[in-house]
């Protein structure tokens, strides 16, 4: 019962279908307060679908999603925005901060936006246009946007995809900061098994259904991964390519 009280997210026998395909089958797991849980699995295995179902972007066929967290922040998978859009970071954040129906610029929301950007080390991006940001910078802004209403649980969909090595490392630090210092509970989809090994408390390996679930040193074992992926995946480097380093060597 104690574990239930601490649980921020409880998923039981979740089934999600898209058109006639069963994308997720009987997914069950739990995320507890303060945990950093990573979702791994092959492409097309339903990782992003799981996150979208959790935030209500996709309908579920059956199962239960019990959310104890008051507020859930969601960071979608996106690398950049069209250069035709001149929206500035402060303007983008004010779309959420401004409670007025009629919006015409950031106005007084700038102070709150600046504080939130300072929290994640991105205050220098305040006056930049979204279309000018690098992949890593844009991801930080999407995280700042998700953090604006102080969520208890943050869902991140492959935030490291397309980041260069430097961007990846600084991003790694940001995730540590959010989880360790702010105490944010995080559920993150990632291809980067090296990152997953370093940041997560729990790893959920899915390929339509849950293949394994547990601490990273138990889940990130060659036999588990080859079963889920159909082959032994290599480490994913910062630019999204596989580095062909057997996972077993990590342990």
């Amino acid at each position, binding site marked *: 019962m104690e574990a239930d009280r601490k649980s921020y997210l409880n998923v039981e026998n979740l089934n999600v279908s898209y058109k006639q395909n069963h994308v997720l089958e009987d997914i069950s797991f739990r995320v507890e307060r303060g945990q950093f849980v990573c979702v791994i699995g092959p492409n097309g295995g339903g990782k992003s679908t799981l996150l979208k179902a959790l935030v209500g972007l996709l309908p579920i066929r059956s199962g239960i999603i019990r959310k104890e967290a008051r507020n859930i922040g969601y960071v979608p998978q996106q690398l950049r925005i069209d250069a035709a859009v001149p929206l500035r970071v402060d303007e*983008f954040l004010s779309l959420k901060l401004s409670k007025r*129906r009629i919006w015409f610029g950031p106005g007084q929301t700038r102070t709150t936006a600046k504080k939130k950007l300072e929290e994640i080390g991105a205050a220098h991006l305040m006056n930049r246009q979204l279309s000018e940001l690098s992949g890593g910078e844009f991801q930080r802004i999407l995280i700042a946007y998700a953090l604006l209403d102080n969520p208890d649980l943050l869902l991140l969909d492959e935030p490291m995809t397309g980041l260069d090595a430097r961007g990846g490392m600084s991003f790694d630090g940001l995730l540590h900061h959010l989880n360790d210092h702010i105490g944010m509970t995080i559920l993150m989809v990632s291809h980067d098994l090296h990152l997953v090994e370093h940041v997560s408390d729990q790893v959920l390996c899915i390929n339509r259904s849950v293949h394994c679930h547990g601490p990273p040193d138990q889940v990130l074992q060659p036999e588990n991964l080859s079963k889920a992926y159909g082959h032994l995946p290599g480490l994913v480097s910062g630019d999204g390519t596989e580095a062909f380093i057997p996972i077993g060597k990590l342990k």
Partner: protein
Amino acid sequence: MWDILQTPELERALLVAIIAGPIMGLLGTFITLRGMAFFSDAISHAALTGVGLGIALHLANDVYGPGMQLVLIVFCCLVGLMMAWLFERTSLRADTVIAFSYSGAVALGVILISQLKGYQSLEGVLFGEILFASSRDVWMILGLSVLVLAFLLLNMKALLLCVVHQDLARIAGIDIRKLNYLFVLLIALVIGFLLQQLGALLISGLIVIPAAASRMVATSFRQMLLLSAAFGLLAGVLGIAASAQLNLPTGPTIVLANVAFLIVAMALGAILGRGKLVRSGTSQLDRV
């Protein structure tokens, strides 16, 4: 120069430009950001069929009359909704839907009009005649502008969030489908209303060019909106003044005034290092 404008026709034309110019600039900002420039082009060209149908079915006989305006508004809205429905329900790309809707409707319009004996004036529909605007037209356009302004102000956050990421918009509780259909109806309404004054071939340019010019120099979305409205207003007024002074066709002169603003904005943007089309090492053509 202002003496030339002291005729009732020019006064009304000027009023239309002052009211509609900024509104088209504002609307154009969202149309360009949403990648719908060709959508508005297709609706305006398809209106040729509306003209043909209006005359053939005896709904309207005068190309510039209020009956024809009503026919055009209804027809443009129907074409817009049909294209939006096809975008949604088929796996065809938007540009493909636009291409066949556009050429199909133009072909049908030309055939219809060619069969109408004794009827020859396509020119008025193609290029419009802002000098024929009546007092009633001015009031109607003022009402339309209030509607457009209210829609954009009330839905600006939703429209912008959809441009950034549709999932974020959905999570914010925005009904994207409803918003898309309403936006399409708004574009169709503006085109249907203003087609008689601004012409099927020109109206889309008048919507898109001020927004494109403002993007070249704007450093924020708010700036883009304000500059786009300002360019729409100034190009309209200068275009009418120039056409009166130089005895040139009014609609095309307004379009050329807009193009002049665009060229100046591009030059200014290049000097200030703003508004580059390419930011990430890939050209616009790479996306095609």
